[in-house]
């Protein structure tokens, strides 16, 4: 028996989570009402709400709010999609082939821990300040985590399943396609979730450096006008969008690999 942690999604658990968030916002609201802090340093939630409604209606710098959110999400999704498309097969191939693994390992291990923000100057130099350079940066910061995770997932497939395949006469192709790949899927999902977290960070960083739209840009731009309320709104939206992305992945995982963790 393994310890499975608190069961999420149970009514009591959800209720406690809601109360805890409400209490936090409530406390924040009261601090604002009592004017315990300058609104420049910590704007109260009601003020952020007013700004939110305002930019929702009029846009920020003539770009509607939903477009800022959409642009950021779009950049991230395209990059994540490409990273999974390239990273999963590459990682699986590395997990299966010792030669390929030895050939690519140095590059993967060099790039994976490298803060991708350091590549921003190069990305701009090579690809300009358009969408491509931003997508390229997010792609890179996601790719290596996916590659390493997928390669490791192959190694983690139990010896028992490999032997089972061999005993049933599986060919090499069948072994990979019918046994190793499906058995690796839960771990691949975990690595994609991790990678998306890293990629989201890079997105915002690259938007903060070179962009004219997107949530990261909005935060940076607002800070130069001392609009702390919009900065905080941007942070909240970024957090929510990241949370939503992760949630979508969790849902996709439950649909695709419902057996994960239940063997």
């Amino acid at each position, binding site marked *: 028996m393994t310890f499975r942690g608190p069961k999420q999604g149970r009514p009591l658990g959800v209720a406690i989570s809601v109360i805890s968030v409400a209490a936090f916002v409530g406390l924040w609201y009261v601090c604002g009402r009592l004017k315990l802090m300058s609104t420049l340093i910590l704007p109260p939630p009601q003020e952020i709400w007013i700004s939110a409604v305002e930019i929702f209606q009029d846009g920020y710098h003539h770009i509607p709010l939903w477009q800022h959110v959409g642009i950021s999400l779009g950049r991230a999704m395209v990059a994540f999609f490409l990273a999974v498309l390239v990273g999963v097969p590459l990682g699986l191939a590395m997990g299966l082939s010792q030669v390929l693994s030895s050939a690519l390992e140095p590059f993967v291990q060099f790039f994976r821990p490298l803060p991708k923000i350091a590549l921003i100057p190069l990305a701009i130099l090579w690809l300009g300040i358009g969408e491509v350079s931003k997508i390229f940066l997010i792609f890179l910061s996601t790719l290596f985590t996916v590659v390493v995770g997928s390669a490791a997932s192959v190694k983690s497939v139990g010896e*028992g399943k490999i*032997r*089972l395949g*061999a*005993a049933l006469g*599986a060919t090499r192709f069948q072994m990979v396609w019918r046994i190793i790949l499906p058995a690796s899927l839960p771990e691949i999902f975990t690595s994609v979730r991790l990678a998306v977290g890293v990629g989201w960070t890079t997105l915002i960083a690259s938007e903060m450096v070179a962009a004219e739209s997107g949530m990261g840009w909005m935060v940076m731009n607002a800070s130069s006008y001392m609009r702390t309320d919009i900065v905080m709104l941007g942070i909240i939206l970024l957090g929510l969008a990241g949370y939503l992305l992760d949630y979508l992945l969790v849902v996709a995982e439950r649909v695709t690999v419902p*057996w994960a963790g239940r063997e």
Partner: protein
Amino acid sequence: MSGSILKSAAVTSLDYPVDDGSYSAPKRKVDPGGGIELKNVSHRYGDRSGGQTTEAVADFSVLIVPGSLVCLLGPSGCGKSTLLNILAGFEKPTSGQVLVGGRTITGPGPDRGVVFQEPNLLPWRKVIGNITLGPELAGSPKKEALAKAERFVELTGLKGFEKHAPYELSGGMKQRVALARAWISEPPIMVMDEPFGALDAQTRISMQELLVDVWEKTGATILFVTHDVDEALFLADRVLVMTPRPGRLARDIVSPLGRPRVYESLVVNPEYAAMKREILLAMRQPEYFI
């Protein structure tokens, strides 16, 4: 050592004594391809770093006639799993020869079904999908595979569970699926590595009865590894007792017990007690018998 080959001749007759008239031994058509011959099989595990090697199996020879149910009995770590992995084709012996149906084996093959300690079910396939895995990998049309599966679903008592996911099953049910999966292609030989070791006592007994039942209805030879003396006594035509590492054949005992065997009757059967005593002695002082 060489006495083992002589003794094996005693199990060529598979006519069971009729117990009380109510039981008639099933007319068993033994698969002639199920003969197993191990000739001076030795296995060493190499320790690549220090050049140290561990001898797991030493000079093991045995001849098993087609259709028999042979239990390989020994303490944990005596090399019985190694021997079984060699027979299954997962490992190559350091020296010696393994013949199945008269031919030297070169690796795993469809002539040997394997049931592992762990059920090793594929969690993304339903029960029925797990059972039909072998035929599917061999390229059988799905319909044909399903038709074949039906018989073994019935035999293993899985009727009604075909659409269940593996994680919805108990340990015993999972092992039934593993049995059906290995048996669906009707290999002449079934190799089993303590398949019931993790089950509770009651489930284990019902699984042992199930195993004998399916075995009687098929023509397979079974090599069954266990460390449980009572399990070996209940199942086997013949019990091979191994020494602790490195595993050698200490004793080769042909069971005097008829079939059907019922646990409740066996425990008061003097022949059962005598054979158990022999096995226990062999396990306590294996060196005496080499």
